[in-house]
């Protein structure tokens, strides 16, 4: 900007923001945080007995897998894309880690297994990110392809073993339950810090949000969209591989159905956490932490409150609809698509 053009013209008076306007503007954030607080309070109330610590660590065990994957998924969702193959990828990765781990043996086996899976996850990320662009496909189609592919691969792999369930010989989790919880919390916190850094303070986060908000504009402003799409999907890949490992630590085993439903669960988690499915500038990394814990605590609360098993899904559906009505409702104009 040429220096002499800078004048002292005052920028227009800042409008006063009333509390109500603030509430309206941040209804999304507030709802998701309030939701978490509510389910957490209910959790404390209904679990105040001797099993409190036990139940808390159960919640941590379940939610940490979701959280790890969701932290990666935020990058993809902030571009307005989604990946429906996450669940099947997790299934195949867990099986592969066990097969490779057992073949090589010991701790090195686990490491080799994890690295192999990580490589595979990165390749899938590249397919999801790049192939869709090259072939002119919506990203959902490549992820559908991967979903079918990995469903098949999981079945074939398990049939190859001739067993219902395979087990990793090397122990991968601390014996004590509390130590295990601490390990999971540590993983989630470290990963969340890394993800938050990349999301807030690096090109990755800024570019994925820009792509989600307007891909053409991003491209014309110097964003190599293909490259960053691939990187974002690879970031998800890393997190899916990590999430698979965390899942593996829970049981040390895997089966035909391992990981099933994770793609949808992660999506619901992110929505509950306040992530807009269309991506863009309203995307936020906190959704990946708030969502999973809300989701798991909610399930837990409903069971402990003694809601009939058949009614739990109904209640969950109503809560989901209520939250999206509060947060995603479009006020005027044409019907949203």
């Amino acid at each position, binding site marked *: *900007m*040429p220096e*002499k*053009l*800078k*004048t002292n*013209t005052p*920028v*227009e008076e*800042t*409008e006063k923001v009333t509390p109500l306007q603030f509430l309206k503007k941040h209804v999304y954030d507030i709802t998701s945080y309030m939701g978490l607080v509510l389910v957490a309070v209910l959790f404390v109330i209904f679990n105040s007995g001797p099993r409190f610590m036990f139940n808390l660590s159960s919640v941590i065990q379940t939610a940490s897998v979701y959280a790890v994957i969701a932290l990666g998924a935020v990058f993809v969702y902030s571009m307005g894309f989604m990946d429906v193959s996450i669940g099947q990828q997790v299934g195949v990765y867990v099986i592969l880690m066990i097969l490779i781990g057992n073949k090589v043996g010991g701790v090195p086996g686990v490491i080799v297994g994890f690295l192999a899976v990580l490589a595979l996850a990165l390749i899938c990320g590249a397919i999801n990110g790049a192939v869709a662009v090259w072939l002119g496909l919506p990203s959902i189609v490549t992820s559908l392809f991967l979903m079918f592919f990995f469903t098949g691969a999981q079945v074939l792999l398990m049939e190859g073993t001739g067993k219902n369930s395979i087990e990793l010989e090397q122990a991968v989790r601390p014996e004590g339950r509390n130590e295990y919880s601490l390990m999971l919390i540590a993983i989630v916190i470290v990963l969340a810090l890394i993800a938050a850094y990349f999301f807030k*303070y*690096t*090109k990755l986060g*800024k*570019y994925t*949000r*820009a792509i989600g*908000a*307007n891909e*053409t*504009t*991003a*491209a*014309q*402003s*110097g*964003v*190599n969209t293909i490259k960053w799409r691939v990187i974002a999907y690879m970031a998800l890949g890393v997190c899916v591989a990590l999430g698979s490992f965390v899942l593996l630590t829970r049981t040390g085993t895997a089966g035909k159905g391992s990981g099933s439903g994770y793609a949808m669960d992660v999506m619901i988690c992110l929505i509950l956490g306040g992530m807009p499915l269309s991506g*863009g*500038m*309203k995307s936020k990394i906190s959704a990946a932490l708030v969502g999973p814990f809300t989701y798991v605590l909610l399930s837990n609360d409903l069971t402990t409150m003694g809601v009939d098993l058949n009614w739990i899904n109904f209640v969950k559906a109503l809560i989901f609809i209520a939250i999206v009505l509060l947060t995603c409702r479009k006020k005027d104009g044409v019907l949203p698509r």
Partner: protein
Amino acid sequence: MSKEQIIEIRHMCKNFGPTRALRDVDVSFYRGEIRGLVGENGSGKSTITSILAGMQKATSGEMFYKGQPWAPKTMVDAQRHGISMVLQEANTIPNCTVAENIFAGRFDEFSKLGIVNMKKVNEAAQQLLDSFGISHIKAADSINDYGFEDRKLVEIVRCVNDDTEVFVVDETTTALSLEGRQLLYKLIHKLKDNDKSVIFISHDMDEILEQCTDLTVLRDGEIKGNLTREEMDAPDAVKRIRYLMVGREIGEAYYREDYDSSHRPEVALELKNLTFGPIKDFSLTLHKGEIVGFGGLSGCGMHEIGRAAFGLEKLASGSVVREGKEIKTCLEAINSGIGYISKNRDTEALILAGPIADNIVLPSIPALSHASFISPKAEKKLSDGEIEGFRIKCNNGRQWVNTLSGGNKQKVSFSKWTAKDSDVIIMDCPTRGVDIGVKQFMYKVIADMKKEGKAIILISEELAELIGMVDKLIIMKDFEVTKEFTRSPDLKETDIIEYMI
């Protein structure tokens, strides 16, 4: 001569949230007139007409149409009663037939029990097209087969029929070439002669002065003045209108004042024998401190040249070279210091659903990034500097771009490249849909850029702007260069037009 009043608006107010778009407006429209509506962006011109035509509802106030209270439910409702409106943006529906485009809102007239008779629809549509004298458009064809001009004509056909009493043209001409404009002018004059009423909104002062019989000026949601034809013909009319619009003296300095067409010797950008699409073998050398302008009708290929220079077009042969390096993608272009202001501001140049600051710093992110870290402080410093420098009206950099007016939006898309400190800036219609105050500001920015040694390509459909700003003017027609002019005080629009059509 007393004309019959057809529409009367009393005490109309319209609020968009805290923004007051219309403040207690009283205005009347008469038969047999072409009423121009002018005002800066956000002054309320389109708000009045869109309420009149049923697109939205007023917050308060009354309307009377032919003496009766008037409250249209939808645009079609208004159209059935004789008030039609053509909008600025392309409003045809792709992948549908011409007939469907024309009659989609009125299928009920051709259907029984919800079953529509497409044969009848096609016949009626063709009849209508013929009656407008545009028989070359066939009702049963897909709209995709027709170009931009023809589509606009289809839109006009959709709006205007025998029952049309009031015809609103909302900045339609900005999107039209000269040919299209002529057709539209003919139509509104015919309507006027048939004792109908026309309301004409435009940013183009010359057009307004030429075509309108009356003029109403708005500012900040209030009527600031009415001019008759006689007053419009007065020698200082333009100055007076501008004063009414802006509310202060514009001053003489509007375009560049100097006629020095020199530039620095260094070459900033070279287009070598570009061949792509219909464009064959185009070459251009742009120097530092030079403004090269492109003029022509909208389909003449000048926009494509701008895109090609920014690496957005796939070249069949030839090359774009900057500082010895060939530029093949827009990424390379940006990295080598080229900036591009797209004419499709809202869809290509800006992230509407995002903060101003993020828009401004987006091209500069690689420069801000140190070992992957991008400091929020540095970002804020950069964006605040631009917001201040460009006097972008906003609360702060976190405000979203879609809350800004057109002119301020355009300032944001300018500031992206000044923040990046690009040396070559390609501007495609930089002042389209921007009001006078902002325009004046932009021209000053461009002139200062030249002085700083930036190289500029200015593509525009407004000849006056080109004549006023550029060192070298290239006129194109049918994808070929027809004439080049150099900067001179004697250059007149009439000299140029013949090379355009």
